[in-house]
């Protein structure tokens, strides 16, 4: 759920940066879960890369070692 942000980075950079870390971590986790599910559904790395807006090489290099390959 999204509510109004209480952070003003010009007032409190420490808190703002903490939020950046937490958001990045949340995005990483969401990305891994979604990529694992996409692979399980038979998506190719080209399709995953397209959905993420990156090159196939970049997606494969960054994520292939972090997700279990789908069981055949």
């Amino acid at each position, binding site marked *: 759920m*999204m*509510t109004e942000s209480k952070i003003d980075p010009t007032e409190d950079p420490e*808190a703002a940066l903490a939020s950046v*870390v937490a958001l990045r971590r949340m995005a990483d986790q969401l990305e891994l879960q979604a990529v694992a599910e996409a692979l399980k559904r038979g998506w190719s790395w080209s399709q995953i890369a397209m959905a993420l807006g990156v090159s196939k090489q970049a997606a494969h290099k960054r994520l292939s070692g972090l997700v*279990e390959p789908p069981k055949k």
Partner: protein
Amino acid sequence: MLKRLMQAAKDAGTLKVLCETAEGLARAEGREAPEAEHFVEAALTLPDGSAGRVFARLGLSGAGFKAALAEQHREALRAVGVDGVVVESALDVSPPLPPAGGVYRAAPSGQIVVQELARLRQRGVTGPLAGSHVIKVVAEMGHGTAARALRQMGGDPQAFVAAADAEIAAA
């Protein structure tokens, strides 16, 4: 001279255990490489028990560190308006990653911990490498997830540095 060499060898062994434990903890929660907070958790598992005693000197329990980490992430997400189920899902531990292969790699904050531990001797810190040293270098970082978790527990990082120094002096 021989004593110094034996100490260096023992410290290298402790550092190896710390690095491997931190990496195992990170990958068990789906993180690619260990961060400073994983080194704190690893320090708390060392048999010397000194990391836990640093927390105890401040009236805190090291066992509360992991909960403090989650709470500071929760607060950081709430602060930008992400709340409720989304936050709890984000705090869920990701599926574990397989053991890392190849050259040892820590996240940037983990690298700082390892570098600062290696630099302690140059800074005149004596005694065998122990969990208290890890708490000292992480608290000295002042910023970052681990330092924020220490604050979340109610201790100022400087208080952790002082408690770690007292624990190191008492060893």
